[in-house]
């Protein structure tokens, strides 16, 4: 029914990116992602894509794992690509019955697709090379407002509890003959099941809060972390950022 989110399944591998200081890694890669999605030129976009793939290979995260995560982006981007290819006004290069593909459509569609794929691929070397709790701690050290960091932390923790909880509710429904169809009855039943999920979540929220209070929660839990930034982290970060910048200056030198 629903999948378990586990982007950090390969966080315990060993690679230069796994050893990269989390804070420096987040900053460098976020910079790179922003840079990649704003590339105006298809050729340079390809350079960006190759670099993203290079980073992925460097991270040793298996390709099959990455592909399984890309299906949503692929669905969005590919349908966008097809629609643009057929509807974008411009020079027609092929025809199917009453539809025609334009060069401009193809170009724009490809540019968007490449940029989107590069951005998704870069998530893996960035987030997939450390445990998600480390990501959250790194965000905290990077001075993201504490209330947001806390929300991220608790939300992340309880997603797993609720996936299991909803899975059990769902299984119980199926075992009494329920089938998910697009009918009024089925949709209303899902509504009830979801209502139940919220009621239980709310009650759990109450208990969690009590449990936190009874261990002295006052609003800003601190965690102990040992991040140690070294020369090589600076170097790596600077070179990634340098590359990101060069993606936008390189066009001056291209024909």
């Amino acid at each position, binding site marked *: 029914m629903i999948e378990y989110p586990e982007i950090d399944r390969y966080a315990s591998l060993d690679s230069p990116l796994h050893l990269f200081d989390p804070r420096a890694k987040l900053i460098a890669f976020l910079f790179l992602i922003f840079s990649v999605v704003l590339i105006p030129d298809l050729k340079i976009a390809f350079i960006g894509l190759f670099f993203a793939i290079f980073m992925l290979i460097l991270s040793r995260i298996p390709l099959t794992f990455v592909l399984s995560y890309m299906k949503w982006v692929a669905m969005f981007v590919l349908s966008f690509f097809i629609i643009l290819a057929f509807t974008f006004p411009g020079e027609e290069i092929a025809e199917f019955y009453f539809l025609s593909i334009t060069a401009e459509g193809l170009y724009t569609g490809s540019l968007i697709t490449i940029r989107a794929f590069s951005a998704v691929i870069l998530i893996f070397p960035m987030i997939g090379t450390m445990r998600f709790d480390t990501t959250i701690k790194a965000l905290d050290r990077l001075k993201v407002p504490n209330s947001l960091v806390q929300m991220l932390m608790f939300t992340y923790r309880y997603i797993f509890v609720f996936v299991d909880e909803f899975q059990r*509710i769902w*299984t*119980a429904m*199926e*075992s009494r003959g*329920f089938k998910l169809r697009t009918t009024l009855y089925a949709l209303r039943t899902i509504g009830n*099941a979801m209502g139940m999920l919220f009621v*239980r979540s709310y009650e759990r929220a109450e208990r969690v809060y009590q449990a936190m209070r009874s261990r002295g929660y006052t609003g800003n839990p601190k965690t102990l972390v040992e991040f140690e930034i070294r020369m090589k982290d600076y170097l790596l970060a600077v070179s990634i950022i340098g590359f990101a910048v060069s993606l936008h200056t390189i066009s001056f030198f291209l024909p």
Partner: protein
Amino acid sequence: MKEAITVRDLNYMYSDGTRALEDVNMAVYEGERVAIVGPNGAGKTTFLLHLNGILHSTEGQVEVFGTSLGKVKREEIIKDVGLVFQDPDDQLFMPTLFDDLAFGPMNLGLKEDEVRERVKKALLLLGLSGYENRCPHHLSYGEKKKASLAAVMSMEPRILVLDEPTANLDPRSRAELIGIIKELNEREGTTIVIATHDVNAVPALANRVYVLNKRIIAEGTSQKIFSDFELLRANNLEVPEISKLFEVLQCFGYNCEELPLSIDEAIEHLTRTVEVNGGHIHLHVHEHTHDEVKKLKSKYEHHKTF
């Protein structure tokens, strides 16, 4: 006897790679009460989910009344096999108890009259008549447990599968539920399969016991299973309290080959032993009694001291 459930070489692995079941074989006969015991994480729940086709594995086969579950639609299976979950909140999600009890029969495609009939019968059976319009979420825990059983009963399955029916109940509700399950089996002939940790309830609940710990470790009557200490210890299990005490009595010279497992059996055993021994039993302390008792105590001590 007819086989109600036949499981052959069942294997199951969760998508994250956890092997929950390995080469499980099991046969449950019609009208039986079978208990499945095993430690936390042994795969009991996983196994039960296979019995009505919620989980299915390509390796191995589950047959219900001779029909392989792979070959029929789930609607057919759930008519025969009703599954009651451990946490009643998982199962009660409609705004009123009536709706919840009607949910299963409605999905079976029954007519409205028939649905009402079934709901009424299930409520009566579990002593919940008059609760039709209550919101299940606001019932007490014991009531919720009964309601979740009723919600499956209303589908009138021939096989009833229960996951930890006695957990978290107070002793009275626990005894009540055990009573209801037994009566269902004896009066209506419903075949019963139960997964449980509650070893004290097993002898009353089941005619036959399987020990599951990924694979089937052992099978037999409660007597057989609960007399094999090594087996129990290796699988984080225990004997019922009553049996422990009879082992103690043995140290004091009481003669018994088979340890009684429940109060009823204990009474019977005592009566029989007394009669065999000409109306009298002598308990006494020998030199070796204390040693034996000590040995026994260490046998029962599960936890490492630290």
